[in-house]
């Protein structure tokens, strides 16, 4: 750390040429230094314990650490660790529409993630709308629903509504020439095949997680404020 190398030589005293401070002034500065030292130590200790694996100290002081770190000092740094994601997770959707002649029809599956992928391809500056919106919304949904697609707590309801609104934003009120009445979402998970030089064998078959049909309400439509 270049900045904190002890500095020999005369210009180390450049800051000390002014008149020495009075005792009260020195006290104020000393208190300032003490506060800064304590604050920096506490802050870094909390930072360390918030990224460390669960351990003796986090078990004992977990609530205090969470209280300190959330919401503004959260760190999401486990980049591609412990293992990078090894599967392509695509979110797909289809709609049940009311056709102009009054009948009902079901559209084919539309691969919304593939559309994101196409927008990212050959794009030096991918937008968060392409790279993060749907991808992270799906992570949010999966993290707050159980295997029977039951929402877990308030976040579960929010994540379901978020997915519906993203789907409806991309579909629009009309799809395939009819008004969208219900939508169904599924994820298609395809493991990345092992590298060609590897002798590993894995099944690269796509696995689907199919969600129940959702009736589209006014709250799911783009631009709808629900108040």
């Amino acid at each position, binding site marked *: *750390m*270049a*900045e904190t*190398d002890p*500095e020999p*030589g005369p*210009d180390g005293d450049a*800051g*000390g040429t*002014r008149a020495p*401070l009075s005792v009260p*002034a020195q006290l104020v*500065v000393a208190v*300032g*230094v003490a506060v*800064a030292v304590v604050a*920096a130590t506490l802050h870094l200790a909390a930072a*360390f314990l918030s990224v460390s694996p669960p351990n003796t100290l986090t078990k004992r002081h977990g609530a*205090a650490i969470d209280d300190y770190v959330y*919401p503004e000092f959260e*760190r*999401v*740094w486990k*980049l*591609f*660790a*412990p*293992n*990078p*994601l090894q599967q*392509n997770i*695509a979110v797909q959707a289809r709609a049940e529409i009311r056709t102009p002649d009054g009948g009902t029809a079901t559209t084919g599956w539309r691969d919304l993630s593939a559309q*994101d*992928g196409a927008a*990212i391809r050959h*794009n*030096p*500056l*991918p*937008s*968060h*709308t392409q*790279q*993060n*919106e749907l991808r*992270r*919304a799906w992570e*949010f949904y999966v993290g707050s629903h159980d295997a029977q697609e039951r929402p877990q707590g*308030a976040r579960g309801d*929010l994540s379901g509504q978020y997915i519906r*609104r993203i789907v409806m*934003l991309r579909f629009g009120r009309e799809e395939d020439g009819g008004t969208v009445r219900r939508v169904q979402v599924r994820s298609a998970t395809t493991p*990345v095949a092992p*590298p060609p*030089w590897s002798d590993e064998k894995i099944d690269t078959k796509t696995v689907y997680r199919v969600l129940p049909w959702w009736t589209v309400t006014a709250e799911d439509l*783009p*631009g*709808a*404020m*629900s108040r």
Partner: protein
Amino acid sequence: MNLPARLRTAAARGHARVTASALGPWQSAVVRIGFSFTWLLFLVREWPHRRELYGPDGPWNWDMAARLIDGNRAFTALMWSDSVVWFEIVYTLAIVSSALLLLGWRTRTMSVLFMIGVLSLQNRSIFVGDGGDNLVHLMAMYLVLTRCGRVWSLDARRAAREAERERPPRETTGVVLWAVTGSALLWAQLFTDARLFLTADGPLPGLGWATVLWGLWIVQAGWWFVRRHAPGEPRAVLDALANVAHNGALLVIMAEVCLLYASAGWYKIQGSRWQDGTALYYPLHLDYFSPWPALADVLAGSGTLVMVLTYGTVVAQVAFPFTLLNRRVKNAMLVLLMLEHLGIAVLLGLPFFSLAAIAADAVFLPTNFLRWAGARLGRARDRVTARAVRLPGQRARESDAESPAGTLVRPRTLRE
């Protein structure tokens, strides 16, 4: 000397050092420039998508954000009103404050506005962010406590000019800016549902946003008053306290960068793919992270190359904090990490994440290099302006006098 006496001397020397000057003026300036540039570029790039990402009618609409924030109590000015006009004002202010922080105009005030902009947009829609956003979020808060505008800034240029005058300037701009920000804060406090409390719902337990924002506002006034009316000891005390805050924040920034690499590396060691040397192969084959499939195929075509890069990444990340003990190794490692981030920017399509990471790495760049680069850039700029303006004697002064490196307020020089 016995040990207690030595410790006392060391403590006294340390005390003098952290109070006497704001250390790492070029490093803190380059961090300021790096992060404000990253965020500015991001905001401009997302301009067409801004309403979808953060606007009241995006898929993560205002009501949903309000429900989530009721639980996590994060700070965002976008929840003060659900009108589109307010959203546009906040987004525009975020752009303007980033640009002005980049230039170092009224740096301290701009760093606060920059932080408000970053927190407001990111906390409004936390589910569209990624690791890069997270890094900007943290650094935006730390930068507020640093004196990051002492070099390479319009403030530094102004300070150099003022140093030649006898009386301190009237500071009309500063007073107006102070009055405007104070009125805006008062409006938020009195007429909106902003959760600006003294002790609750703040960035840290027991510290509310009202305390933080009004506190910073009062400190600005105190600073102005002392500069103008009490230039003796009060000024020296405030100066020392500002140095202490700066040095503490700079230490935290450096430690956070170490923690980032250490944790990223230590978790990777536990991963089977990082152990068998194929980890890098997989992200290159994810549809969300492959803007250049042909390029990724070339890289992923060689098992040896993938293995070397995979192991190299883990080694570099785990080793980084320890390389700081040796200046040469540290500098070599910085180059490697910055190159790796450039690679990630292109190959994985994560330019803003990579820019943020490079800006954070830059806090460890050697002073010599930064000053040399600053002087070169300054000369290049002078050549360009001289060619463009063609007014000899007015703009084309001696290059060094106008170059950024020449506009510093002469903080204590730190030898690398």
